[in-house]
């Protein structure tokens, strides 16, 4: 019995095949999903998705969204998703530094909200690369 994982972004389908296990980060902590999991619906936070295929773990950076588990089918709807193999380490590091600088410079409620979001996203991308290495 294997799980079928579908990761959808508004652009394209990022992942659509079978996996053995996944670990999602949600607002209320991390959830591990094995085959025959009870049906749940959860919001997905900006964080890392870990996928296990035959004792090999893959990481993906997710930029927030929603996930639904049921009947051995997992559907993850996110704003953007990047496989860690697709992320350039230096570029991700640079984006992180820029986001940190922007947060320090931010004034007012609006800029702070934006800067915070950008920082969390940049941090997730860097973590996704560090997680495998």
């Amino acid at each position, binding site marked *: 019995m294997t799980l079928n994982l579908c990761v959808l972004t508004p652009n394209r389908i990022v992942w659509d095949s079978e996996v053995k296990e996944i670990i999602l980060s949600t607002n209320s902590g991390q959830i591990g999903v094995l085959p025959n999991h009870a049906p*749940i619906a959860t919001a997905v936070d900006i964080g890392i998705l870990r996928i296990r295929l035959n004792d090999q773990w893959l990481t993906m950076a997710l930029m927030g969204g929603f996930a639904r588990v049921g009947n051995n089918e997992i559907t993850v709807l996110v704003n953007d998703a990047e496989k860690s193999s697709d992320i350039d380490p230096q570029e991700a590091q640079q984006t992180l530094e820029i986001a940190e600088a922007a947060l320090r410079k931010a004034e007012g409620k*609006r800029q702070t909200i934006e800067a915070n979001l950008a920082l969390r996203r940049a941090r997730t991308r860097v973590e996704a690369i560090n997680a495998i290495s």
Partner: protein
Amino acid sequence: MSCSSLTMLVSSKPSLDSSSPLSFRSFITPVQIPTSNPSVSSHPTSKSSSSSIHCSLRDLRTRIDSVKNTQKITEAMKLVAAAKVRRAQEAVVNARPFSETLVEVLYSINEQLQVEDVDVPLTNVRPVKKVALVVVTGDRGLCGGYNNFILKKAEARIRELKTLGLDYVVISVGKKGNSYFLRRPYIPVDKFVDGSNLPTAKEAQAIADDVFSLFVSEEVDKVELLYTKFVSLVKSNPVIHTLLPLSPKGEICDINGVCVDAAEDEFFRLTTKEGKLTVEREAIRSETIDFSPILQFEQDPVQILDALLPLYLNSQILRALQESLASELAARMTAMGNATDNASELKKNLSRVYNRQRQAKITGEILEIVAGADALV
């Protein structure tokens, strides 16, 4: 008699180089050369139909060459735009699974939340004092009236808002809109976003972030999206959609309050019918699969809606960007197609005039030679 007329020909030769062929042509008529007569009589009529000023043969030749080059360029631009429309269409098709699943989930969650009153920041309906307008234009020109229509609609909406006494701010997407608003500092612009060849989720995310923070920090009370809806290859409609506040059921509302159920979304497809490119719109009603009744929400349903609605916002903005791009490409295709046709017609007219002049010049030279040979004899 013929001798005297011929000498007349020879003596007036110096004047020929400086003056236009007009004087030369009028000179031919008294000599009554039958070959040039029909050309002379028909020349004035063709001149009035083409309505262009002819200088010399060389200038005409340069002009014909430049028109030919322009025609090649416009033809190439048309083909490039046609290829890009196909890519834009593919992007729309790729975006379908996401929006379909999203709508499904929204529906089922709403059904389960019927009893509760949902209070999510993005659905807050506040008394409107300030409105944000997101105006989507193109990056480049040469696309007919595409950019102009949208900007005119934006101006009209701004006037409406002014008469209603509401404050406004503009978020401009696309280089054409950016330069338009830059030249008008009396319109407050919040952010300039550069468009791109193929709108991706990242760009939609940037606009969504901006709009989200504007709305949540209560700087604006309503966000409207101005983009061009793709109706057909020759027709496109600039429309205004209310982006925020969202209705929890996921309906897409027009400014007049006309709401369309999100499940009955329309998708367009570029196909060929009888060998010509056409666009077909399909209104698809996505099936709402019954959720398993024991579905548990990991978090508060409100929190889940909180996570879903930004996704929905994102996909709406992306849809608008993609449709605008498709309309721009279609407008460019039509405009460049018309330009190519005009160029070929212009080239035909110019060639006709050029050939007539060339023949007239040759005839004149023959006459001079004959006259000169006659005089020597």
